[in-house]
């Protein structure tokens, strides 16, 4: 009665390697920023303002990606900016996921009044314009890392709750739930042991997506000067600053932008890649 079905294995996709590689590289860069960065990211020198990257005519040795209008080294600022971006991605992403997924799972599986309460909360929540909402939140709480993380969690938990609720509802209609009841399993226990493993692949994809979104939100908030203190290097802050001098010094805008783009793309592809690789049903 043996056949080849269990021998099918998927190779690790290029997607997973590239995205995982970039994230790993970024994590290393953020951790080792004090040793890797060629300059102090805050050190200003007006004589060294708007130096082009190393391979362009007129570059100074040592400033590989050029300097901004205040003479601060772009590479060093990107490296230090990675720290903030990654902290926001990890902390805000995981917290959002934890809160949103738990509420979604409860609403979708337990149904009844729990579902009514949570679903109405989601509907009301989503009627607020998100960017205004976050600006309002930060205006009230004052800028800072905690405020950014809290703003992201408070706004984005609905993204998880909605999707996970729908998925949990679909799974709840499956016979393995009835089967667990016949076996005498409690509802709450069924939710965690039977439903959760089937919703987990969706949660992982959403989580990595949310990490990418968190990086973008942080950049948007820096762009409107509501992130942490303007001195600290953030990618969004650099992009905002680069925008003003795009005709004289394109590198101030382009390098943080490319880093941001690659990071967000990698996060979303990482989720898909992980799902392809580790979901037993897709194997």
């Amino acid at each position, binding site marked *: 009665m*043996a056949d080849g079905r269990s021998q099918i294995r998927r190779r690790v996709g290029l997607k997973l390697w590239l995205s995982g590689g970039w994230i790993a590289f970024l994590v290393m860069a953020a951790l080792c920023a004090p040793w890797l960065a060629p300059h102090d990211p805050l050190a200003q020198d007006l004589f060294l303002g708007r130096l082009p990257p190393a391979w362009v005519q007129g570059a100074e040795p040592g400033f590989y990606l050029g300097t901004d209008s205040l003479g601060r080294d772009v590479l060093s600022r990107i490296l230090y900016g990675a720290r903030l971006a990654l902290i926001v991605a990890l902390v805000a992403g995981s917290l959002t996921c934890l809160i949103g997924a738990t509420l979604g799972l409860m609403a979708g599986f337990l149904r009844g009044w729990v579902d009514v309460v949570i679903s109405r909360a989601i509907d009301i929540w989503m009627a607020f314009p998100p960017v205004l909402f976050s600006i309002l939140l930060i205006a009230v709480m004052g800028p800072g890392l905690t405020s950014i993380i809290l703003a992201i969690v408070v706004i984005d938990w609905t993204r998880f709750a909605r999707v996970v609720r729908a998925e949990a509802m679909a799974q709840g209609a499956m*016979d*393995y739930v*009835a089967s667990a009841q016949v076996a005498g399993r409690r509802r709450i226990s069924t939710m965690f042991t039977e439903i959760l493993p*089937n919703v987990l692949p969706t949660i992982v994809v959403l989580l990595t997506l949310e990490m990418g979104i968190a990086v973008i939100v942080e950049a948007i908030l820096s762009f409107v000067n509501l992130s942490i203190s303007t001195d600290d290097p953030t990618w969004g802050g650099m992009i905002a600053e680069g925008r003003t001098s795009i005709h004289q010094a394109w590198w101030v805008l382009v390098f943080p932008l490319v880093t941001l783009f690659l990071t967000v793309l990698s996060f979303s592809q990482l989720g898909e890649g992980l799902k392809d690789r580790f979901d037993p049903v897709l194997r």
Partner: protein
Amino acid sequence: MADLFTIEDLRLSLPDMTKKPLLGQAPRIDILKGLSFTLPKGEILGIVGGSGSGKSTLGRAMVRLLEPTGGRILFDGQDITHLDEDGLRPLRRRFQMIFQDPMSSLNPRHRVGQIIAAPLSLHGFADVPARVMDALDHVGLSRGFANRYPHELSGGQRQRVGIARAIALRPEFILADEIVSGLDVSSQAQVLNLLEGLVQELGLTLAFISHDLSVIRRLCSRVLVLYQGEIVENAATAEVFDAPKAAYTRELLDAIPLPDPDQVWT
């Protein structure tokens, strides 16, 4: 022999949400309209009927996945009609169910070993791994299957896992809800043979729901014919096939494809 199940005037209705007025109660549809029968220990009862006849609903009420709205269900003398989950839990080990579609009833992200072990650990059995292996042996699956996922199995193998999960608890009663209707004919025969053997070996009482009379005829000692939520026939299998009383039963019998249309069932 003593009766394992006694069912008296069983009624079940569900609200019809499609006809629910904006305010107020939805009208109720009667699915089971007062069924009474007994199921003696050791018997294999076939429950037949067309789509919507209420046969699956009856089955699910017997294992208390659904709560009846009227009448009584006695299991081994105990009234289980309105017991809540806490009250049912100690009894759950004694009546088990095999589902129609194993793709839906086996958790796709649990391994076969886990699937069979879960009810065992819930009921506090010792030596769970040994019992899992024993159950696999009983249904004719090699022990290596414990590490497989359901989607890696064929249809017949999956249904064997469903059977293994049910018998692992050594229940007294098993409800088999259309368990072979998704299988090809040769797998059907294998699964039915297996079930027949297990019933004898483990001394099970079985309720076998099907819309296929030829399957019922092979397996069951008694047949219950349902039509629109009512029992139209309740008799020994031979009797039903030789001298059907209800017009609906005759219709069902006529619908069985015969190898030679000129022959009659003998």
